[in-house]
């Protein structure tokens, strides 16, 4: 019986090792990327013979790159809002209910996630024309929103399935109607899932090339710009762009986190 704390500690040390090994694995390519942005050459790779700040300063001087970044961010945020709204609604309808055609509705829900990128991009393009949607920001937001809905639905459904029914029933007993009990009980319970799903959506939208390319107009999103630049070689400039985009998104994320925390405190 005395060995139990040690057993726990042994487990804990093992798990900590796995965690930090994983951190190492995800960070090493990131560090390489940042470092290569300082290489004084037109291509990334070892050995690095001399260093320069030109690539980084060049990005800040390049109005096109900065506006592209803003454009991609706006698309990501707008499409995420739509996906999350629609996704929650679909998940609430599907989870824990049995009705005729449920499997079909579920199948159609996950459909956009099943189609390879190029196909879905062309399908969206043809359909957009059929609907009379002009290529451009609106079309990209629409395509990203539709494509990301399945991810929201799956994540939210997983969380919903663990919602204790007793809580809803208690609220009902106290006279809350379905809408109010949804807002007061279900929604707060879903917050972690909604946050997770939003991260997926933002990420998928921010990194999407093929849909943005087919549905975009003359203003490139960040991945479209990077792909075009890649044509003339993987230069440190691309790494500098990616690094700065990363820092800016991280800054926005931290600011948003602080902001919501302060808002919560004030109310």
């Amino acid at each position, binding site marked *: 019986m005395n060995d139990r704390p040690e057993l726990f500690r042994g487990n804990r040390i093992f798990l900590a090792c796995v965690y930090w090994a994983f951190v190492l694995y995800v960070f090493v390519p990131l560090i390489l990327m940042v470092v290569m942005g300082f290489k004084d050459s037109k291509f990334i790779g*070892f050995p690095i013979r*001399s260093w*320069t700040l*030109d690539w980084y300063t060049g990005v800040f001087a390049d109005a096109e790159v900065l506006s592209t970044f803003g454009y991609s961010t706006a698309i990501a945020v707008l499409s995420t809002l739509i996906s999350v709204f629609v996704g929650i609604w679909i998940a609430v309808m599907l989870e824990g209910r049995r009705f005729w055609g449920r499997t079909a509705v579920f199948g159609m829900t996950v459909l956009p996630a099943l189609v390879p990128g190029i196909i879905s991009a*062309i399908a969206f*393009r043809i359909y957009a024309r059929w609907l009379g949607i002009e290529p451009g920001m609106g079309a990209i937001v629409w395509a990203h929103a539709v494509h990301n809905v399945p991810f929201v639905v799956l994540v939210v459904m997983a969380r919903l399935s663990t919602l204790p029914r007793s809580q809803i029933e208690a609220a009902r007993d106290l006279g809350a109607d379905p809408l109010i009990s949804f807002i007061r009980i279900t929604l707060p319970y879903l917050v972690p899932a909604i946050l997770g799903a939003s991260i997926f959506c933002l990420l998928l939208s921010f990194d999407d090339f093929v849909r943005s390319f*087919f549905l975009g107009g003359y203003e490139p999103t960040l991945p*479209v710009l990077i792909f075009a630049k890649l044509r*003339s070689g*993987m230069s440190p400039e691309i790494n500098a762009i990616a690094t700065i985009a990363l820092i800016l998104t991280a800054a926005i994320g931290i600011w948003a986190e602080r902001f919501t925390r302060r808002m919560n405190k004030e109310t």
Partner: protein
Amino acid sequence: MSRLIFNRRRFLGTAAATGAALASPVYLRHASAQSGGEVNIWTYNDFVPEAFREQFEADTGIKVNVRLVDDQGKQFNLLAAEQPNPTVDIMTVAGHRFLQFIENDLLAPMDADRLTNWGKIDPIFSEGDWATINGNKWGVPILSGMEVLSYNTEVVSEEEAQTWDTLFSEKYKGQNAYIIQDMLSIVMLMKGYDGNFIEYANDHERAAEIMAEVQQFMIDKKPLVRKYYDGGAEFQQMMINQDIVLGHSWNGPAAALINDGFPLGMSIPREGSYGFVYTFNIANNAPNADNAYTFLDALLSSPEIGAAMTKASGFISTYKDVAPHLTELERKSTSFPEEQLAKLQFFRAEQNELKYSLMDPAVEAIKAA
């Protein structure tokens, strides 16, 4: 900190391009009276020199909208999805892919008489046999590319690079790479066949036989290859990381490596090779066709503009008299000995249907083997 060197190479490059545009506005001012509006272009990164674009906009009042594309296939799909009301006026097509665009009614024939500067293109490119289809010209040649054998000069000798056989030799097992599609026509050349399929236009059985032989050869050599790649950037990265020491590549990406100081050599091996030309084409039903002609004529006006495109892409300029505007290294990386150039032929599009109907399944079969 002493190792931190502020290098000005990139900025010098931009400065040279600015000079190129400043030297050319005489013609443009002439055209500006009647214009305005905009022109929409789909092209690769750096194919429209930035300085020229600014100068052109200032002189003519025509706004230049550039949409960057990264591959011929996507451009075709996008245009096909947009027709019959495209948003584009000018796009960049590889010469041997004309036919696909033409057959789908995506391109308008080019009226060379409307371009006063047409004569400033080297006739090798403007009057080549590949350039005329159905009795019409279809594009303005701007840059030329070719398939070459690229090699790390510290490992592979110049002697060895004179034959494509080296690419398939045991000596360089696991140190080579190529694009399957392109390699198929090269292997046909190695075996003395016509990679353009013109000779087999009336004998499809013979064509299929040859393709089966080539396919078998590539499958037999599969254990020797390190990577079947797709993009120039991949090739450059493999060379830099020394994952490969030789490979088949387009000359543009190879030239870019040479210009960056990498010990790379290029050759057109004795069995021969294929070349193609990038052209600016006007889309069928282009919304601003007149502006498109104004733009193209301005683009052709000075060899310095051609030189700026070569500097950015590594491909060979189609303009006359570009050489004086290039540096020593840039000239070296875009020129080949006469006897090697004699072995070069252009891709032809006439038998594309036959060619691709045999090649596409071969590519799948080689990948699956």
